[in-house]
């Protein structure tokens, strides 16, 4: 046998697949040929890796489920966009259900601030930097799987006196560090760009009703998202948008339901008034009785 013939057979030989006669011939050649011997050792070294895996392992590696990729791409899109969707309130549906942290975090914060601002008439102002931070963090303030939500929000809500640090930890443990960032930015956010979304909290202390209005300038006026808290289930609500010049616009009504509390439903509304014209929002009931007054601070109208 020539070296060339032997070489080509060495792979099968290394794996013990040659028939006995041929194996003998090859071994005979190897006894006197160092180069071919070295090659066999090398191929046996490669062959020894084969024992580390099974045929099934190779199949698994070759065909990871594509739907995982599809889900990843979907999830990525959702996570990247959810914040933006919330701020843009872009859905055409009348009710925007947001089961995510974003809104819950806002709400928890609003509760905290409104309760801590009993002596200070700065309810709205105190939340302003956060709406700015919220906007900036649009994509970072992503919601984790909504299934994580129910266990978290009641805690955040029931402990309004928790320190911001510990609360943010709770809220973001499973996800990113949005609240931390948001709060960090809140300290420094002195200026705001025009045209970005804003969040305004309001509270009716006597009744313990709360409302948060999310406002985003649009081509036709302002897109609004409204969330209420403490208002009895079954209440028919309406938002009255009040402009500086006295104009008032009323939105269609919505009904507060147990479900809307559970889902943290944000009621989607529109007004033709521009954000800079708006001095306050009033959440009123069917009869026009004021439930919650939501002031818009002056700096939001610049």
């Amino acid at each position, binding site marked *: 046998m020539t070296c060339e013939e032997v070489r080509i057979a060495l792979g099968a030989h290394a794996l013990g697949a040659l028939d006995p006669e041929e194996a003998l011939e090859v071994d005979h050649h190897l006894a006197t040929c160092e180069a071919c011997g070295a090659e066999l050792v090398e191929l046996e070294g490669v*062959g020894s890796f084969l024992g580390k895996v099974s045929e099934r392992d190779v199949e698994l590696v070759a065909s990871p489920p594509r739907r*995982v990729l599809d889900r990843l791409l979907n999830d990525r899109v959702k996570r990247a966009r959810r914040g933006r969707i919330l701020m843009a309130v872009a859905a055409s549906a009348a009710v925007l259900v947001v089961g995510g942290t974003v809104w819950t975090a806002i709400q928890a914060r609003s509760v905290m601030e409104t309760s801590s601002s009993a002596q200070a008439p700065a309810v709205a102002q105190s939340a302003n930097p956060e709406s700015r931070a919220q906007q900036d963090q649009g994509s970072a303030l992503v919601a984790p799987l909504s299934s994580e939500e129910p266990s978290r929000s009641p805690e955040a809500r029931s402990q309004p006196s928790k320190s911001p640090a510990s609360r943010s930890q709770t809220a973001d443990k499973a996800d990113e560090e949005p609240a931390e960032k948001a709060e960090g930015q809140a300290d420094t956010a002195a200026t705001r760009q025009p045209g970005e979304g804003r969040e305004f909290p309001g509270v009716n202390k006597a009744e313990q009703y709360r409302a948060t209005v999310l406002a985003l300038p649009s081509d036709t006026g302002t897109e609004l998202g409204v969330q209420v808290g403490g208002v009895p289930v079954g209440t028919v609500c309406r938002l009255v948008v009040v402009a500086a010049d006295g104009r008032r616009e009323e939105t269609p009504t919505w009904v507060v339901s147990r479900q809307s509390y559970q889902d943290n439903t944000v009621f989607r509304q529109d007004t033709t008034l521009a954000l800079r014209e708006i001095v306050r929002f009033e959440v009123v009931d069917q009869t026009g009785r004021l439930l919650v007054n939501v002031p818009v601070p002056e700096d939001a109208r610049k």
Partner: protein
Amino acid sequence: MSAADTADEELVRTLFDEHAGPLYGYVLRLTGDSGRAEDVVQETLLRAWRHPDALAGRPVRAWLFTVARNLVVDQHRAKKARPQETGDEALAVLPADDELERAVESWAVAEALAALRPEHREVLLEVYYRGRSVKEASATLGIPAGTVKSRTYYALRALKLALEERGLAP
């Protein structure tokens, strides 16, 4: 779609293409359940996507396997008792023990084999995993015995390269 979105999508696809196979194999072996394995792979790759900084300067594969393993452990605990929350950071610093290192290695071997040209992989499956002789493989594959021999030779040569690419020197 913005440039950032496109770059994001690229990253997700790259993570999937480069790691989903071995990761899925590893997790499936741990869980024995394809549905759960898919969930764990998805969550693991998602974390990698969200924490590119956590991946910088460390062996990506070992990090992914560690995260996946801990997700499996957490799932297991969650089934028995109340789930324990574990942050990504905690997961990432868990030392890679021998078992994990071995797993990373063998799945890299499987990956190297999967990366071979089909005819090379096929001949190794016949000759090594199914224990067929050159003659038997020739009959099964419908190719001359000489071709089985040469393919086996080139398959092992190609495998050597594929292993070396993955840092596994025979």
